């Protein structure tokens, strides 16, 4: 009650809320979710064991969470935006001191119920944080140096923390999502051009601070045959798997590349490869179309929202989601270097699932409470 009086808001009946829910979006998410369970099942050669079980449980738990959190009022996220951001930063710092290492990088903290990857959470936190930040700023002020510098600092802190884990892929995704919102908020095009030029100039320096394995991945991207059994192995095998899938694929559970263990990381970053090998070009197109529909629905919700925060968040999240999907698929088909980025919902991984579902619940909240205008 306090909530509704302090903000210029409307009251909603429960029926109104249920009516406002975007069921189409829920259906799309459940379809992709079911497809992901079958894909993970296939990575285990058709055995319902560890990965499939875990993935199914996570999907069900986080999907339910998405449905429940959808009814949290969007103004709550607005108010807690900075807290969310700070929490994310604190968790990233926690990783430095108490993190769990796996295969050479420290990315996780043990939260007893699950090992959380704070960088995944940060992907959402940065969008929420920036949406609030630009919600308050007048369009005339956006171009001022003060309001230019603040978001850049806000963005650099998590990026730096994630790069040092090291996790270049997630850092790029965080930076990309942040930049997408800054762009949407209306920052002058020239700043993007300038920073692009600066990045280009500083590229040699950036490369010099990269870890050897990151360098080798980038070199391998340009020439996978450089080291076909080492760094180039993943991308070569991934291309073979996708290419041999053909128009209709080898059939469910028939993917020889993954079944015979030629594919590395097949349940995480290379889940698209497995899916594409088994279901072919047609299957891949169906999956991409589902993702496109998902993004379209999110943008539609953004348009129908009255508050600028909601708009900015929805458009920002839609762009980020697109970025995640694009980077992952482009990576496994050999258009981008292998940087380690999961495919939303499809890939095995709790933190990724959590952050996507959380992000979606805020979108749904924007839909349900679309008539809310946020602001003091």
């Amino acid at each position, binding site marked *: 009650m306090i909530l509704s009086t302090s903000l210029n808001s409307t009251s909603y009946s429960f029926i109104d809320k249920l009516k406002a829910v975007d069921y189409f979006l829920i259906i799309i998410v459940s379809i992709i979710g079911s497809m992901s369970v079958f894909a993970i099942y296939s990575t285990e050669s058709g055995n319902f064991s560890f990965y499939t079980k875990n993935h199914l449980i996570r999907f069900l738990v986080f999907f339910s969470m998405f449905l429940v959190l959808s009814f949290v009022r969007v103004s709550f996220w607005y108010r807690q935006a900075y807290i969310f951001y700070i929490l994310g930063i604190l968790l990233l710092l926690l990783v430095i001191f108490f993190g769990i290492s796996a295969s050479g990088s420290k990315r996780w903290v043990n939260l007893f119920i699950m090992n959380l990857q704070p960088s995944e959470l940060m992907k959402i936190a940065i969008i929420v944080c920036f949406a609030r930040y630009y919600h308050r700023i*007048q*369009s*005339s002020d956006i171009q001022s140096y003060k309001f230019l510098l603040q978001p850049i600092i806000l963005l650099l802190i998590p990026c730096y923390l994630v790069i040092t884990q090291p996790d270049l892929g997630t850092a790029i995704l965080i930076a990309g999502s942040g930049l*997408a919102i800054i*762009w*949407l*908020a*209306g920052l002058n095009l020239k700043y993007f051009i300038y920073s692009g030029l600066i990045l280009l100039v500083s590229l040699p320096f950036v490369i010099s601070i990269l870890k050897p394995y990151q360098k080798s991945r980038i070199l391998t991207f340009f020439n996978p045959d450089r080291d076909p059994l080492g760094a180039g192995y993943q991308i070569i*095998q991934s*291309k*073979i*798997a*996708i*290419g*041999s*899938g*053909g*128009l209709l694929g080898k059939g469910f559970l028939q993917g*020889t*590349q993954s079944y*015979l*263990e*030629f594919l590395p990381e097949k349940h995480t970053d290379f889940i698209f490869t497995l899916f*594409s090998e088994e279901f*072919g*070009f047609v299957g*891949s*197109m169906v999956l*991409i179309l589902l993702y*496109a529909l998902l*993004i379209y629905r999110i*943008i539609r919700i*953004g348009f129908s929202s009255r508050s*600028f925060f909601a*708009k*900015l968040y929805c*458009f920002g999240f839609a*762009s980020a989601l*697109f970025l995640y999907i*694009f980077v992952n*698929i*482009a990576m496994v*088909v*050999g*258009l981008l270097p292998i940087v380690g980025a999961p495919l939303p919902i499809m890939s095995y991984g709790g933190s990724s699932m959590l952050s996507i579902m959380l992000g979606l619940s805020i979108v749904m909240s924007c839909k349900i409470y679309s008539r809310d205008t946020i602001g003091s």
Partner: protein
Amino acid sequence: MIKKIGNLNKNKIISRRLFVLVTAKIGLLGIVTSRLYNLQISQKQKYEFLSDKNRIREWKTPPQRGIITDYFNNVIADNKRVYQVHLSLEEVSNFNNSIFKLKNIISLKEDEIKKIYEKKEKSKPWDTLIISENLSWNEFSKLNLYLHELDGAKPVLSTSRYYPYSNDLVHVVGYVGDATTQDIQNKKKIEENFVPGLKVGKIGIENSKDTDLIGNHGTKRYEVNASGKKISEISYNKETQGKNLRTTIDLKIQQLAQELLKNQAGSICVMDIYSGEVITMASSPTYDPNKFTHGISTKDWNKINNNKLRPLLNKSLAGLYSPGSTIKPLVALAALEYGIIDTKFKVNCKGHDHPYELYGERYHCWKKNGHGWMSMRNAIKQSCDIYFYEVARLLGVDKLSLIAKRYGLGSKVLKDFFSEEKKGIVPSTKWKKQVLEQPWYLGETVITGIGQGYIQTTPLQLCLMTAQLANGGFKIKPNLIYDKEIDLDIIKSKIESEKIKSVSQNILKNHEFKYYERLYRNPNNLKFVLDAMYGSTNEQFGTSFRSRHKEDKYKFAGKTGTSQVKRITDQDRELDLDLEEIEYKSRDHALFIAFAPYDKPRYSLSVLIEHGGSGSKAAAPLAKKLIKKILDRHELREKIRKDLKNIA
């Protein structure tokens, strides 16, 4: 109000900016889609091929060699079941450990272990290594007992080459061994069918007929996973066994020949004078070919290689010897054919006190007291040297050379069938000029007349020469592998038609003869020479009289030969030592050529005993035993011949 305008303004901006972003997204989506189209539709075949290459791996399975039999279908080169242990490298966790354990179960020597490590270096991680090719039953059962402790070790039942008559046929059949890089490079058939552990022929028929004997390897195609582990068998293209071969050899006669040559260095060859079938080709000493199949030990190898009687030398066709007096029938024939002398021509042999003299050089007869006045028949029968010195002088070396070559000397009998066969030397003035770049001396003609000097022949050539004299003077085609194209009836009818043909103008000139073509000018000359050889064996004072068969059906005709290995000095002649008193290496080679039965000749043979002394004492008695066996087995051989013809 301002705020509202601001918000409106912001909303306008965000929509415009979103439009740009969405456009970019659609563009990027287009790129991803076209990439997928490119991979999955345009380049599908390429990636499908790569995927199959990934998942399918081929294993070649070794073929079984063809079986080799003698003429009577006795197996002389067989495939025997052997027990082996293989090590599948992909299943071995610790190689050193596995070898150590295996060493304790089956006896592996240090040098064998060294070889295994060498082999391992060259193999791929999914290869199978042959640890031992030939385990005893004891070792094999022990291995099976401890198998649970030996990861990757596999007891395997396989086959390997086995020669049931071991030493007796080694110079004919040869032996097999592991294919070397050279073998693989030289023979396409080996290259195509190479499988680790494949045995290839190294020498003898095994080598000459390798292409037929090897067979074709099989191919097992397996689906494998990324670490090379076999998941399932996709297809199995079965290997095919090599062709079986029937040789012309008669095992029983070959065995007798080897038995007769026991403890001596020498050769015995037997040939069918019409079909040219080599019935026996024995060479002594021998060695065991079975020892080579799985790699011969250094100790065994040294024993064979250091034997002074040279077991590795196939004396029948790679041993070169002066033919000695065995050439005399040919010298006589040449002189008659050219009409230099007639059969009544006489020479007086007066003993060592009055040797044959030419330009101050003296040439002796082997008979100290001399033969007295000799006619041609007697000179052949008693092997008078003086007579042939004179005939050779009158004939000239070039005419002799021409006839000698015509009857089979100076060229390879079996063509290129055996890589080790030698041509020998039939000297002529032209040959000496070309090879030694020296003029010919008449004294050299004289000694060529008794088969000494430059002339060098193989025992198989002497056997062929005898055959082509005994068949009435027709060129035959020697062969060692049964060939249904060589039909006795056809050969005989060809010969009959040749006999009545008018003699060609060129008959006394050098020209190429076709198979079964007549080689002589006048048949009476041949008849005369063969009759003289009959005298040599069956009449008193004949050099091989003591080795004759009295029974009509075994009667044969022959000619002895004793070839000097060093020049006899006057001092030697003075001493006149017995055989036992002469150093082994200086003793004469004993030779004998013969054909049988005399009235209807069918088989020819040559016997050579290295450093055996005189031909009449050392060689002719062996021929006697052999001829009885050959003739006893004649009916049986003819029966087989008929059967084979009927099958064909």
